[in-house]
């Protein structure tokens, strides 16, 4: 059974159709990259998965459970959306770290708040805090940021900030981790260090959806590529197949610049 099944998602803003009948599925441990020109709906798709936008039509299933159905208001209760969001993690293009917290605190904050909702929180307070802190340190270590844990975001480079943001998303152990152009706000020198940690995550079989303009990366890291154009999935499949032998004219045109380089 696929870990994620997206069916017939449609979304319009005012009178502009941004997503037009999007369907795809994802197996656990798989990384899928979504490519396409700006304005093709890639970011909106990720935002729909994370309940930052509400699709007009369609369903989203995680592990067989329907977590969103546009026709069924029962799946759209505000109170449950918060819990459902936790199936997904999202790494933003602009990091969105909390500036008043250190790197470590950024990674720990959400998990600490969730722990407070546990019935036995009061009696296990110290133990939970230690666990969460240890996990956060491990994650930052994994991101190569052991020396930077007590720095504030403004003291970090863009690449370091984005790696903290990745650790922050991982701290909640999402089923599916989404990346929204994670390197687009970085200069070329810093892009590499972020791509490297995402690659490591792929090696560890982290289930991921990666929206990116880094074509070589999209091809190498993913086991599946989706090409979006004008709100539609125009083509999808094995990365080598899509990149080397695109079927659609529009895909060829989009990839031609990449192949020239």
């Amino acid at each position, binding site marked *: 059974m696929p870990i994620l099944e997206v069916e017939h998602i449609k979304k319009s803003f005012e009178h502009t159709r941004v997503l037009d009948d999007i369907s795809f599925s994802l197996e656990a441990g798989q990384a899928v990259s979504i490519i396409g020109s700006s304005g093709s709906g890639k970011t909106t798709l990720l935002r729909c998965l*994370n*309940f*930052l936008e509400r699709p007009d039509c369609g369903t989203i299933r995680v592990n067989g459970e329907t977590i969103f159905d546009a026709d069924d208001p029962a799946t759209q209760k505000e109170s449950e959306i*918060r*819990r459902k*969001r*936790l199936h*997904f*993690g*999202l790494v*933003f293009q*602009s990091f*969105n*770290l*909390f*500036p*008043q*917290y250190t790197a470590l605190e950024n990674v720990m*904050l*959400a998990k600490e*708040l*969730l722990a407070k909702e546990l019935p036995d929180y009061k009696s296990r307070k110290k133990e939970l805090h230690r666990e969460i802190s240890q996990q956060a340190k491990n994650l930052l270590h994994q991101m190569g940021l052991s020396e930077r844990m007590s720095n*504030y*975001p*403004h003291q970090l480079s863009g690449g370091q900030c984005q790696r903290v943001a990745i650790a*922050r*998303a991982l701290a*909640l152990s999402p089923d599916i981790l989404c990346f929204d152009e994670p390197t687009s706000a970085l200069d070329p020198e810093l892009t590499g260090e972020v791509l490297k940690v995402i690659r490591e995550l792929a090696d560890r079989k982290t289930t991921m959806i990666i929206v990116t303009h880094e074509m070589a990366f999209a091809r190498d890291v993913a086991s599946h590529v989706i090409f979006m154009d004008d709100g539609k999935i125009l083509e999808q499949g094995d990365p080598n197949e899509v990149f080397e032998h695109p079927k659609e004219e529009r895909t060829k045109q989009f990839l031609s610049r990449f192949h020239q380089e």
Partner: protein
Amino acid sequence: MELILEQMPIVIHSLNVGFLQTLKLFFVTLIGAFPLGLIIAFGSMSRFRPLRYFSRILVWVVRGTPLMIQLLIIYYFPGLVLGNPIWGSGETGRFLAASVSFILNYACYFSEIYRGGILSIPVGQNEAGLVLGMTKRQIFFKVTLLQMIKRIVPPMSNEIITLVKDTSLARIIALQEIIWAGQSFLKGSQGIAGAIWPLFFTAVYYLICNGILTVLLGRLEKKLNYFR
């Protein structure tokens, strides 16, 4: 000159008593207006239309009319029109009426400062909180609030310093604050009459008080400089 030195202890004592009342009104206003302003700010950003209109009209009326009129109306209206002088005639009643007027007035000004502060925080902060499974309340208290405070310290400092001086308006309903105390020696009080110099002294009280506030608020601003 000798006369002034002789009168000095009497005047200083009166001014101290008056200034204590000024300070009381100042702090009571801050304690009331800080939270009430936040409530009005949320009201004027609410998606619930009647609440939003109510809050915005309130802010419009309160900011659009002089504080002095508000003081007079709030103090005299219940007794003269409703036949129910809720404030009584003593100093305590005048202080209560003045407090209510000042809190309402300053809460409206504060609410706009809060609103500006909240709107200036990038939406990405809110979205990051949502994606991490935080509730709206948690996002406000754990993420937004401190960033908002950092941004509003300079405009708030302005309002707070204005408030110190605005308390003198309570003189209009005969609240015995420092201007009232200083002015009494013009008319004649405790054997001193026709003396204008006590009024100059009142100005010194205001200056010193605002000097201290400026330093404290500057420190707060610096303290919040640890993040950007």
